[in-house]
């Protein structure tokens, strides 16, 4: 059976109602794109207390400072949880989790780095996943079935947004590269000169996508419209 999850930033998670959280098998908290959206350990506790059945910590590429915060967060979360699922983009974090918490942290290979990994040789991928104990590859590519046909990996598919680019020069008003503490503004639709459409959410640019019908997809991860967690309609 396909697991259903919802992905929330920390401010969205704080605003989410228990009834919303209980609709899903799992709640992602954090961000795959911005290290300023790493949650606090308290956010994970609050999600559990509010009825989230399972929690995944989403983490992006990390600077040295971001890695230190992520490591401290995992350490703190493991005081409360016997096991923790972490979506990882940064290879420094992946290595750290293997060395310190093998067996207690269950890593997923996060998007956006999964785009590169999905194109690597299947034999390499299988060995890499085995070595790091990676449970799933996360993707938002609709045509993933054609890209990753033979690796035999389980997939988590994120929808309804497919990331095309992300930046540390955040377009959100008042955002700072190194110390942003503002909640992201609402999503913005961008229209290019040739009619091309992008959706700006936080520090990333997206196009729309739909989940493919693939047996390898074991989890669907829904991302609500930015800044509207309290009014989410799945």
């Amino acid at each position, binding site marked *: 059976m396909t697991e259903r999850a919802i992905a929330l930033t920390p401010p969205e998670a704080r605003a989410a109602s228990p009834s919303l959280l209980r609709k899903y098998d799992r709640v992602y908290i954090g961000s795959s794109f911005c290290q300023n959206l790493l949650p606090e350990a308290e956010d994970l506790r609050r999600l559990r207390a509010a009825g989230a059945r399972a929690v995944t910590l989403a983490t992006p*590429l990390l600077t040295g400072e*971001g890695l230190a915060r992520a490591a401290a967060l995992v350490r703190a979360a493991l005081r409360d949880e016997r096991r923790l699922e972490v979506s990882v983009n*940064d*290879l*420094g974090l992946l290595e750290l989790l293997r060395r310190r918490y093998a067996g207690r942290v269950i890593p997923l290979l996060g998007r956006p780095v999964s785009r590169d990994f999905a*194109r*690597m040789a299947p034999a390499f991928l299988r060995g890499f996943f085995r070595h790091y104990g990676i449970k799933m590859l996360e993707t938002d590519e609709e045509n993933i079935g054609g890209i990753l046909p033979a690796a035999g990996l389980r997939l988590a598919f994120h929808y309804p947004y497919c990331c095309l*680019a992300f*930046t540390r020069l955040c377009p959100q008003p008042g955002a700072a*590269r190194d110390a942003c503490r503002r909640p992201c503004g609402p999503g913005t639709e961008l229209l290019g000169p040739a009619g091309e459409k992008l959706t700006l959410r936080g520090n990333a640019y997206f196009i729309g996508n739909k989940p493919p019908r693939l047996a390898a997809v074991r989890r669907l991860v829904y991302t609500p419209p930015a800044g509207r967690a309290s009014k989410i309609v799945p």
Partner: protein
Amino acid sequence: MRLQVGIGSFRELDYFLSAGADEFYCGLNAIPSHVEGARNFSSEEDILKAAAQARAAGRRMFFAANEVHAGLLASTAAAIKRLAAGGVDGVIVKDLALLDLLRRRRIKIPVILSTLACCLNAAALGFYRRYGVERLALPEQLTAAEAGELVRNPWGIETEVFLKSRECCLNFNGLCFLDCRGGLSNACRKEYRAGGKAFRMPAVTPEEHLGELHDYWRLGVQTLKVGRSPCEPMSKLIFRESAALAALLKAGASRADFVREALRVRRVFDRAYALVRRTL
């Protein structure tokens, strides 16, 4: 700082040799290396000839093999093996599967980790070090302050930086899938409309970039790197500007003095860039 420049022809090699480049890198048409439309050599033989010419002049030649998907993995590793045996001094790699294959096949060649690999912290660099990485092209999205732990890493891995005041992607370049033609027509530089208002993807100012170049130099970054633009005259200008800035750094100016003088240099080059753009 050493000056490294990407080339795609013998004509460019001759030009940059006489202009004072210390190192070169190049690609092969058959192996994707990120920049769409970048000039490449068409055969391994040509690359080996160019490497021999560089070596005879006391310079080094590297080979860029970025973005090697599964279907090209084995042939790319074989090409790198031949190029290493023929005298190419190193290979620039982004792809982890290729690094893994080079290690497993015991192909002895120094590896430069591409800026596209998005290696943002020392722990990630430690990860890549196990794959034989000896040099790192610093990710463009890091500030100099954040790059300190990479530059001053405990393993003696050297670092390179692009002249970001001229060549810097607005998004994480290794994971950007917007339309991109190496500075000629990029989706990230277009003006978009957002609810009736103009929107441009944010960028760092030249003044900030140049201040950071001074910071990188003070940190100990060894190499200033000029990318392969699809436009040869543009590469020449960026190289000449880089050389002027490297000379300023060598003169030991303070950060404020360097930025002031570098901005003056930039204004001179701005006029030259504008002339070149008009011819494209």
